[in-house]
């Protein structure tokens, strides 16, 4: 620290050596984005409330107590229950975080605003009050003090109200009460806290590291195997993605069944695969999106088990998604795997803290059964006192996840898990613990093949084609069945290849029953041939067919002989028939049911189109065909025929009456008609028929007869007697 007292925080920061500044920016990365222009700007950012809140969350209980004392204007060395050097170290760290500055150190203003507690009555008085306090009141104080929280209070009479009345509690606002600083000092005997110098001890038990590593390696192997098994399955049977983006409960349950695990474990496998980029939404032939393995998965698959594990474990370490919530409910909404609302920004930090606390166990130590995990939670609480306590509930599921992944085993960190947490490469340590891949199987007469360890990948893939997997784990049990052998044939293997493959991979002689099975299937394989042809020719006269095949020009018919008496062609019958006739032959056409169709001259017919005969079509046709002039003139007429004095009716009964009258009498009417676009158009029409809610009438505008829906007619009136009308009528 510089000896001279800095005038401002900016000045202090300017004077700091580079590495000190670097530490600050590393610890409080939000200060560095975007890069500040100068120290003044940095100093301005350091005191921003949001940034300070983050920095406060980094403090452990000791540092917080020291800061609190500084805020209250007390000497930390006097009021904090810790040794002098510890207090000094804490002060240094507070300065390093730029939460305090200057000499003597004082908190930046905003820290004071955030943390300051009301002073309250003098300590001695408070101590006196505490002595005479009823146990109930004492319990309330102790609870609030222990939780470091404000109490809720609605103002009702009761022990809390009594405490407020005596001044042992102070109202913070309408609903909250808090312990004042001096009362806190009185509670702890002139100290601000209980002993905070040391983090709480972890409850440990002895456990051989080799056992831990073995158990963890087993878990790691299983985790990789499960991931692969599930994604392989999803390669061919992808589960649909929910509209909201998650994976359906039923699909999750199916996955859990496939993996022989509980729903929670399946969810972890899925979430981790997704975090590692092995799984994403994509499109299949189905119209809906589905969850599919990605291209990264193909690359991942080629790695060794240890490499694959590292990819998964690293993804898990930095996965902000709360996999443990899957299968439960948030509010009354069920939580689906892969659903977008699982992200928790604080989860990565909590996981890192929990693992580093676990990492503090020495070699050969594990968390004690029962008490181990609570002690770890206590330690985390000491280390991050300002974090919401509810988050600590996630520590237990997080440790469970660590065990499932093999980062820990038997409640202790595995050797390779330690490498992972501390940022070294765990591959070598893990590879030594994993079962070595085997390159052979044992074939047995009950048509099973057993791989006594994890198979080499290529071999496993090929074997899974020829035989069905019956049981998985460290070893794999395969069963040969006619269906599985046929699957290999379908994939293009020959019987000889299958024979050779099983003989090659088996360390034991191939049982006779298996050889027979392969031969049996191969004998039946392809007995029936299915193909595609557009037409066939058959004749009982084989020579006639041979003749046709060799006739000049027959090559254009694309004929193929599939039996002595049958030819097929991929030309359609309509094309084939005339060409055969051209060759001078006289074929007869068979109907689909095998009966002969009588030949007759080809009469061509177009397929009749269904015509739309609605009024709209007519109108449109009319519009296309009729001269624009006609329309204009009709328009003119309409306007000129606008009834100026004539009786206009608009009630339905009157409208129908008038229309009927006009239809009977012949004669034109002016109607207001609501068109398809909702506008009312006036038209001059000569009604011909009125029935079924429709008026069929001659429409002068479109020069044709059309129907009008009566309910669309807004008004009807007689046109004024007009000489034009008579002429138009003719």
């Amino acid at each position, binding site marked *: 620290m510089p000896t001279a007292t800095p005038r401002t925080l900016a000045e202090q920061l300017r004077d700091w050596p580079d590495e000190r500044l670097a530490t600050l920016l590393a610890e409080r990365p939000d200060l560095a984005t975007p890069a500040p222009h100068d120290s003044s700007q940095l100093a301005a950012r350091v005191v921003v409330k949001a940034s300070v809140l983050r920095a406060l969350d980094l403090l452990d209980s000791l540092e917080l107590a020291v800061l609190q004392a500084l805020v209250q204007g007390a000497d930390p060395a006097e009021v904090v229950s810790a040794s002098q050097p510890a207090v000094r170290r804490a002060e240094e760290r507070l300065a390093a975080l730029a939460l305090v500055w200057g000499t003597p150190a004082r908190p930046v203003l905003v820290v004071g605003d955030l943390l300051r507690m009301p002073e309250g009555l003098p300590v001695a008085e408070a101590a006196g009050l505490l002595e005479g306090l009823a146990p109930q009141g004492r319990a309330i104080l102790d609870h609030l003090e222990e939780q470091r929280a404000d109490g809720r209070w609605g103002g009702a009479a009761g022990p809390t109200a009594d405490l407020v009345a005596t001044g042992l509690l102070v109202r913070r606002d309408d609903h909250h009460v808090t312990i004042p600083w001096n009362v806190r000092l009185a509670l702890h005997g002139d100290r601000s806290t209980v002993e905070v110098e040391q983090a709480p001890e972890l409850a440990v038990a002895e456990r051989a590291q080799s056992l831990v590593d*073995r*158990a963890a*390696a*087993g*878990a790691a*192997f*299983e985790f990789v195997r499960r991931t692969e098994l599930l994604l392989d399955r999803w390669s061919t049977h992808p589960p649909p993605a929910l509209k909201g983006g998650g994976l359906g409960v039923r699909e999750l349950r199916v996955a859990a069944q496939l993996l*022989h*695990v*509980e729903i929670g*474990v399946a969810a972890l496998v899925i979430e981790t695969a997704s975090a590692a980029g092995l799984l994403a939404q994509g499109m299949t032939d189905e119209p809906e999106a589905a969850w599919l393995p990605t291209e990264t998965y193909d690359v991942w698959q080629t790695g060794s088990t240890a490499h694959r594990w590292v990819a998964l474990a690293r993804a898990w370490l930095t996965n902000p998604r709360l996999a443990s919530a899957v299968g439960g409910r948030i509010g009354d909404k069920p939580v689906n795997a892969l659903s977008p609302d699982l992200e928790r920004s604080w989860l990565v930090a909590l996981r890192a803290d929990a693992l580093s606390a676990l990492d503090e166990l020495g070699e050969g130590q594990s968390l004690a059964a029962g008490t181990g995990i609570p002690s770890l939670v206590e330690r985390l609480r000491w280390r991050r006192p300002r974090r919401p306590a509810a988050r600590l509930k996630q520590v237990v599921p997080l440790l469970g996840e660590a*065990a499932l992944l093999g980062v820990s085993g038997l409640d202790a960190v595995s050797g390779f898990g330690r490498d992972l947490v501390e940022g070294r490469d765990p591959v070598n340590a893990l590879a030594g*613990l994993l*079962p*070595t891949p085997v390159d052979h199987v*044992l074939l*047995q*007469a*009950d*048509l*099973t093949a*057993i791989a*006594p*360890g994890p198979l080499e990948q290529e071999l496993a893939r090929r074997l899974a084609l020829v035989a069905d997997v019956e*049981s*998985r*784990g*460290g*070893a794999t*049990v395969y069963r040969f069945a006619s269906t599985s052998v046929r699957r290999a044939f379908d994939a293009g293997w020959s019987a000889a290849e299958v024979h050779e493959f099983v003989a090659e991979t088996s360390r*034991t002689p191939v*049982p*006779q*029953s298996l050889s*027979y099975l392969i031969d*049996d299937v191969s*004998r*039946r394989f392809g007995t029936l041939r299915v193909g595609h042809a557009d037409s066939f020719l058959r004749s009982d006269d084989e020579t006639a067919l041979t003749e046709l095949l060799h006739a000049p020009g027959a090559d254009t018919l694309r004929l193929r002989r599939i039996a002595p008496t049958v030819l097929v062609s991929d030309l359609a019958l309509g094309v084939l028939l005339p060409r055969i006739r051209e060759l001078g032959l006289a074929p007869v056409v068979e109907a689909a049911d095998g009966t002969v169709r009588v030949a007759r001259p080809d009469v061509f017919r177009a397929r009749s189109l269904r015509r739309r005969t609605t009024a709209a079509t007519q109108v449109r046709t009319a519009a296309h065909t009729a001269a624009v002039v006609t329309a204009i003139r009709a328009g003119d007429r309409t306007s000129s025929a606008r009834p100026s004095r004539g009786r206009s009716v608009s009630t339905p009964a009157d409208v129908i009456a008038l229309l009927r009258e006009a239809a009977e009498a012949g004669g034109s009417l002016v109607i207001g008609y609501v068109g398809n676009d909702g506008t009312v158009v006036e038209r001059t029409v000569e009604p011909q028929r009125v029935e079924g809610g429709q008026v069929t009438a001659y429409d002068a505008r479109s020069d044709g007869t059309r129907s009008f829906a009566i309910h669309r007619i807004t008004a009807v009136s007689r046109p004024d007697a007009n000489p034009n009308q008579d002429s138009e009528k003719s």
Partner: protein
Amino acid sequence: MNEGPLIVQSDKTLLLEVDHELASDCRKAIAPFAELERSPEHIHTYRLTPLGLWNARAAGHDAEQVVNVLLSFSRYAVPHALLVDVAETMARYGRLRLDKHPVHGLVLSSTDRAVFEEVLRSKKVAGMIGDRLDPDNVAVHPSQRGNLKQALLKLGWPAEDFAGYVDGEAHKIELEQDGWTLRPDQQEAADSFWHGGSGVVVLPCGAGKTIVGAAAMARAGATTLILVTNTVSARQWKAELIKRTSLTEDEIGEYSGARKEVRPVTIATYQVLTMRRKGLYPHLELLDARDWGLIVYDEVHLLPAPIFRMTANLQARRRIGLTATLVREDGREGDVFSLIGPKRYDAPWKDIEGQGWIAPADCVEVRVTLPEGERIAYATAEPEERYRLASCTYAKTLVAEKLVAQHRGEPTLVIGQYLEQLDELAEHLDAPVIKGETTVKERERLYAVFRTGEIQLLVVSKVANFSIDLPEAAVAIQVSGSFGSRQEEAQRLGRLLRPKADGKTARFYTVVSRDTVDADFAQNRQRFLAEQGYAYRIVDAGDL
């Protein structure tokens, strides 16, 4: 990495590598709690089932032991979830117990009140229990002892039965070991039954289950009711008991369709007990006719459902079940567990064969091709007719003829399902035939002359599947069977497994029509034996 012989799979199967040096130690260690599922040549498969784990608890093993065995023999890391599951499953056994009570007769009690509440609230249990005596005890009507145990097993909280057994009416029975001795495995089987109180002994056909039954009777020293599958088998039991024990002809009664004798030792057939008249079982009172000290169930895998119901009322009596396979085609293994009792003894067939206690057997599948004409008939037949058509092809008769000729001089059985086929065979081979309509007297006569060697060839239908003791039979030719029944195949092979005087290998031929449903069924039938290590050799009919 550990180099143990055992691989523990996540689906709760255990794979045991037979050729491993620790294999036999491992087998002994896991046998109490794991069910042997398959034992082919290289790797045996065991399965951890709740029943098996409870069997182990019943025999006094705890979860810690089981986990320890798995960990110490396992080659790879044992899936953690499986260990947890083992512990949890085993902890379920014995939370409930049935005890005798001086006042209330029978009392169900529990150390775990939550479980107790769950069970008592279950609808299935509600009708079987009486008054709540205190928070942890409830009275049970003694007649519901079996039903309650059955229901509790279904709920997943099997009760431990400490209510004990009635001694029954004492009746002295002793083994008379002149010219023969009880083999160690038979002794062990009888002992483990006796210590367990009730239960099932699994031994291959031909390994002397009757003798285990006799040994159990001698241990009980009480009046005994023996339930067997049919009359011929009843008479064999009688003959065997007279030969092996101090029992005399007069002490043993036969209770069958023909005779209704109730004596200190009574042998009854399932058929007569389950006979119904006007909706009632008139012969059921046999069960209460005497104060039986022991009930023997022969071929327990065939136990018909009504007998299960009756057995539920007999929980106070000692029960021993004898069988070659616990495979029940109807899947009622759980009822056998809760009503007769847990499995008390089991050994792989091949082990017993290795000891020379059953004859080694060579299983051969002979493939015949349907003649062209029959192939067409087969192809166009209704699906339900196909199996019969494929089974009864004339080609099989020819093969049977050839095989019989090859084994001339050796006692041979030709076994089939369809009567017309059997008649045809009998005519072709010029041999007597035993089928359902053959009278008991005639059957016994034919078996007797076959045993003495007077005739060497018998054609039999499925009536000879079980419990017919033909120790000299060395060759069996199976031409057809009841579809895919695995236990039938095992039983038929069992006819041949009595150790032969000259230590010869028995031959079991099964004739199968290629490319038909017959072949598919044959594969299913053979599965149990293939899993027991009996590898079938396949031979083409033309190569015989």
